[in-house]
Protein backbone atom coordinates (compact mmCIF):
# COMPACT_ATOMS: atom_id res chain seq x y z
CA UNK A 1 0.00 0.00 0.00
CA UNK A 2 2.74 2.43 1.05
CA UNK A 3 5.01 1.49 -1.84
CA UNK A 4 2.13 1.76 -4.27
CA UNK A 5 1.35 5.26 -3.04
CA UNK A 6 5.02 6.27 -3.27
CA UNK A 7 5.20 4.93 -6.83
CA UNK A 8 2.03 6.83 -7.72
CA UNK A 9 3.39 10.05 -6.24
CA UNK A 10 6.69 9.59 -8.07
CA UNK A 11 4.86 9.01 -11.35
CA UNK A 12 2.70 12.08 -10.75
CA UNK A 13 5.73 14.21 -9.90
CA UNK A 14 7.54 12.96 -13.00
CA UNK A 15 4.53 13.79 -15.15
CA UNK A 16 4.26 17.27 -13.63
CA UNK A 17 7.96 17.93 -14.22
CA UNK A 18 7.77 16.65 -17.80
CA UNK A 19 4.67 18.75 -18.52
CA UNK A 20 6.27 21.83 -16.98
CA UNK A 21 9.50 21.34 -18.90
CA UNK A 22 7.79 20.78 -22.25
CA UNK A 23 5.44 23.71 -21.60
CA UNK A 24 8.29 26.02 -20.63
CA UNK A 25 10.40 25.11 -23.66
CA UNK A 26 7.54 25.29 -26.17
CA UNK A 27 6.09 28.45 -24.61
CA UNK A 28 9.38 30.31 -24.37
CA UNK A 29 10.32 29.21 -27.88
CA UNK A 30 7.05 30.32 -29.43
CA UNK A 31 6.96 33.67 -27.64
CA UNK A 32 10.60 34.35 -28.53
CA UNK A 33 9.92 33.33 -32.14
CA UNK A 34 6.92 35.63 -32.40
CA UNK A 35 8.84 38.53 -30.88
CA UNK A 36 11.58 37.92 -33.41
CA UNK A 37 9.00 37.91 -36.22
CA UNK A 38 7.38 41.10 -34.93
CA UNK A 39 10.68 42.94 -34.91
CA UNK A 40 12.09 45.44 -32.44
CA UNK A 41 10.30 48.45 -33.96
CA UNK A 42 6.84 46.94 -33.47
CA UNK A 43 7.70 45.76 -29.95
CA UNK A 44 8.92 49.25 -29.01
CA UNK A 45 5.70 50.76 -30.37
CA UNK A 46 3.52 48.22 -28.58
CA UNK A 47 4.81 48.92 -25.11
CA UNK A 48 4.83 46.53 -22.19
CA UNK A 49 1.07 46.12 -21.63
CA UNK A 50 0.36 45.15 -25.24
CA UNK A 51 3.32 42.78 -25.29
CA UNK A 52 2.06 41.07 -22.14
CA UNK A 53 -1.43 40.83 -23.63
CA UNK A 54 -0.04 39.29 -26.82
CA UNK A 55 2.05 36.84 -24.80
CA UNK A 56 -1.06 35.74 -22.87
CA UNK A 57 -2.80 35.26 -26.22
CA UNK A 58 0.09 33.06 -27.37
CA UNK A 59 -0.20 31.01 -24.18
CA UNK A 60 -3.89 30.36 -24.90
CA UNK A 61 -3.07 29.36 -28.45
CA UNK A 62 -0.38 27.01 -27.16
CA UNK A 63 -2.89 25.49 -24.75
CA UNK A 64 -5.12 24.89 -27.76
CA UNK A 65 -2.25 23.24 -29.58
CA UNK A 66 -1.48 21.00 -26.61
CA UNK A 67 -5.11 19.91 -26.29
CA UNK A 68 -5.19 19.30 -30.03
CA UNK A 69 -2.06 17.19 -29.73
CA UNK A 70 -3.66 15.22 -26.90
CA UNK A 71 -6.79 14.59 -28.95
CA UNK A 72 -4.76 13.53 -31.98
CA UNK A 73 -2.39 11.32 -29.98
CA UNK A 74 -4.12 10.34 -26.71
CA UNK A 75 -1.34 8.09 -25.38
CA UNK A 76 1.36 10.71 -25.77
CA UNK A 77 -1.04 13.48 -24.80
CA UNK A 78 -1.93 11.76 -21.51
CA UNK A 79 1.72 12.07 -20.48
CA UNK A 80 1.64 15.84 -20.93
CA UNK A 81 -1.91 16.88 -20.10
CA UNK A 82 -3.68 16.96 -16.74
CA UNK A 83 -5.84 13.90 -17.39
CA UNK A 84 -6.16 10.58 -15.57
CA UNK A 85 -5.37 8.44 -18.60
CA UNK A 86 -5.47 8.24 -22.39
CA UNK A 87 -9.03 6.93 -22.28
CA UNK A 88 -10.16 10.21 -20.76
CA UNK A 89 -8.91 12.04 -23.85
CA UNK A 90 -10.85 9.64 -26.07
CA UNK A 91 -14.05 9.66 -24.00
CA UNK A 92 -14.06 13.44 -23.57
CA UNK A 93 -13.08 14.18 -27.16
CA UNK A 94 -16.21 16.20 -27.96
CA UNK A 95 -16.06 18.37 -24.83
CA UNK A 96 -12.30 18.87 -25.09
CA UNK A 97 -12.68 19.79 -28.75
CA UNK A 98 -15.20 22.49 -27.90
CA UNK A 99 -13.01 23.75 -25.08
CA UNK A 100 -10.03 23.87 -27.42
CA UNK A 101 -12.04 25.84 -29.98
CA UNK A 102 -13.03 28.41 -27.38
CA UNK A 103 -9.49 28.63 -26.01
CA UNK A 104 -8.24 29.25 -29.55
CA UNK A 105 -10.82 31.99 -30.06
CA UNK A 106 -9.81 33.61 -26.78
CA UNK A 107 -6.11 33.51 -27.63
CA UNK A 108 -6.70 34.86 -31.11
CA UNK A 109 -8.87 37.69 -29.80
CA UNK A 110 -6.24 38.72 -27.25
CA UNK A 111 -3.63 38.77 -30.02
CA UNK A 112 -5.87 40.90 -32.24
CA UNK A 113 -6.54 43.36 -29.41
CA UNK A 114 -2.83 43.56 -28.57
CA UNK A 115 -2.00 44.35 -32.19
CA UNK A 116 -4.98 46.63 -32.87
CA UNK A 117 -4.36 50.08 -34.30
CA UNK A 118 -5.45 52.78 -31.87
CA UNK A 119 -4.61 56.35 -30.82
CA UNK A 120 -1.06 56.16 -29.51
CA UNK A 121 -0.39 52.96 -31.44
CA UNK A 122 -0.45 53.88 -35.12
CA UNK A 123 1.91 51.02 -35.91
CA UNK A 124 -0.78 48.50 -35.02
CA UNK A 125 -1.13 45.90 -37.77
CA UNK A 126 -4.80 45.05 -37.04
CA UNK A 127 -7.60 47.53 -37.82
CA UNK A 128 -9.34 48.61 -34.62
CA UNK A 129 -12.74 47.58 -35.97
CA UNK A 130 -11.55 44.03 -36.56
CA UNK A 131 -10.30 43.72 -32.97
CA UNK A 132 -13.55 45.19 -31.62
CA UNK A 133 -15.59 42.77 -33.74
CA UNK A 134 -13.50 39.86 -32.44
CA UNK A 135 -14.15 40.92 -28.83
CA UNK A 136 -17.89 41.19 -29.46
CA UNK A 137 -17.94 37.79 -31.17
CA UNK A 138 -16.07 36.29 -28.25
CA UNK A 139 -18.59 37.69 -25.77
CA UNK A 140 -21.42 36.37 -27.91
CA UNK A 141 -19.78 32.95 -28.07
CA UNK A 142 -19.18 32.97 -24.30
CA UNK A 143 -22.85 33.72 -23.76
CA UNK A 144 -23.88 30.88 -26.06
CA UNK A 145 -21.44 28.45 -24.44
CA UNK A 146 -23.20 29.00 -21.11
CA UNK A 147 -25.52 26.26 -22.33
CA UNK A 148 -22.55 23.91 -22.64
CA UNK A 149 -22.23 23.65 -18.88
CA UNK A 150 -24.93 20.97 -18.87
CA UNK A 151 -22.55 18.83 -20.91
CA UNK A 152 -20.02 18.86 -18.08
CA UNK A 153 -20.47 16.99 -14.83
CA UNK A 154 -19.51 18.38 -11.44
CA UNK A 155 -15.86 17.30 -11.56
CA UNK A 156 -15.32 18.97 -14.94
CA UNK A 157 -17.06 22.13 -13.74
CA UNK A 158 -14.91 22.18 -10.60
CA UNK A 159 -11.72 21.69 -12.63
CA UNK A 160 -12.83 24.44 -15.01
CA UNK A 161 -13.42 26.84 -12.13
CA UNK A 162 -10.06 26.03 -10.59
CA UNK A 163 -8.35 26.42 -13.95
CA UNK A 164 -10.04 29.76 -14.54
Amino acid at each position, binding site marked *: MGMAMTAERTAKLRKTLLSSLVGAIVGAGCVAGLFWLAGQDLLDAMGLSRIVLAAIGVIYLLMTAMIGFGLAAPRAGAKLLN*VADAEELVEERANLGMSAAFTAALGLTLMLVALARAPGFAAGIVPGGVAMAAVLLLFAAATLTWRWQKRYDELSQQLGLEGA
Partner: protein
Amino acid sequence: MENRVRDYREAAGWSQGELARRLRVSRQTINAVETDKYDPSLPLALRMASLFGLEVRELFIDHWMPEKE
Protein backbone atom coordinates in the same frame (compact mmCIF):
# COMPACT_ATOMS: atom_id res chain seq x y z
CA MET B 1 -12.11 11.68 1.77
CA GLU B 2 -11.68 7.99 2.43
CA ASN B 3 -14.50 6.05 0.85
CA ARG B 4 -15.64 2.56 -0.07
CA VAL B 5 -17.11 3.34 -3.46
CA ARG B 6 -14.81 0.93 -5.28
CA ASP B 7 -15.68 -1.90 -2.87
CA TYR B 8 -19.42 -1.48 -3.30
CA ARG B 9 -19.14 -0.92 -7.05
CA GLU B 10 -17.14 -4.09 -7.52
CA ALA B 11 -19.50 -5.98 -5.22
CA ALA B 12 -22.34 -4.86 -7.50
CA GLY B 13 -20.37 -6.12 -10.50
CA TRP B 14 -20.32 -2.73 -12.18
CA SER B 15 -17.50 -1.11 -14.10
CA GLN B 16 -16.62 2.54 -13.43
CA GLY B 17 -18.38 3.37 -16.69
CA GLU B 18 -21.54 1.57 -15.61
CA LEU B 19 -21.64 3.35 -12.26
CA ALA B 20 -20.98 6.65 -14.03
CA ARG B 21 -23.85 6.00 -16.42
CA ARG B 22 -26.24 5.21 -13.57
CA LEU B 23 -25.22 8.37 -11.71
CA ARG B 24 -25.12 10.50 -14.87
CA VAL B 25 -21.54 11.66 -14.35
CA SER B 26 -18.35 10.96 -16.26
CA ARG B 27 -16.19 7.91 -15.65
CA GLN B 28 -13.41 10.33 -14.70
CA THR B 29 -15.52 11.54 -11.79
CA ILE B 30 -15.99 8.00 -10.50
CA ASN B 31 -12.28 7.31 -10.92
CA ALA B 32 -11.35 10.54 -9.11
CA VAL B 33 -13.70 9.72 -6.20
CA GLU B 34 -12.44 6.15 -5.90
CA THR B 35 -8.81 7.22 -5.89
CA ASP B 36 -9.57 9.91 -3.30
CA LYS B 37 -8.63 12.75 -5.64
CA TYR B 38 -12.06 14.35 -5.56
CA ASP B 39 -14.75 14.64 -2.91
CA PRO B 40 -18.17 14.54 -4.57
CA SER B 41 -20.83 17.13 -3.93
CA LEU B 42 -23.44 16.32 -1.31
CA PRO B 43 -26.12 15.57 -3.95
CA LEU B 44 -23.79 13.13 -5.73
CA ALA B 45 -22.76 11.50 -2.44
CA LEU B 46 -26.43 11.07 -1.57
CA ARG B 47 -27.18 9.57 -4.98
CA MET B 48 -24.23 7.18 -4.65
CA ALA B 49 -25.34 6.03 -1.23
CA SER B 50 -28.91 5.68 -2.41
CA LEU B 51 -27.82 3.62 -5.41
CA PHE B 52 -25.97 1.17 -3.16
CA GLY B 53 -28.75 1.18 -0.54
CA LEU B 54 -26.46 2.70 2.09
CA GLU B 55 -26.19 5.70 4.35
CA VAL B 56 -23.67 8.31 3.18
CA ARG B 57 -21.47 7.70 6.22
CA GLU B 58 -21.24 4.01 5.32
CA LEU B 59 -19.83 4.98 1.93
CA PHE B 60 -17.70 7.96 2.91
CA ILE B 61 -15.61 7.70 6.04
CA ASP B 62 -14.79 10.79 8.06
CA HIS B 63 -12.70 10.32 11.18
CA TRP B 64 -13.57 13.72 12.58
CA MET B 65 -14.94 13.69 16.10
CA PRO B 66 -16.50 16.64 17.91
CA GLU B 67 -14.43 18.04 20.76
CA LYS B 68 -15.73 17.28 24.19
CA GLU B 69 -17.06 20.43 25.89
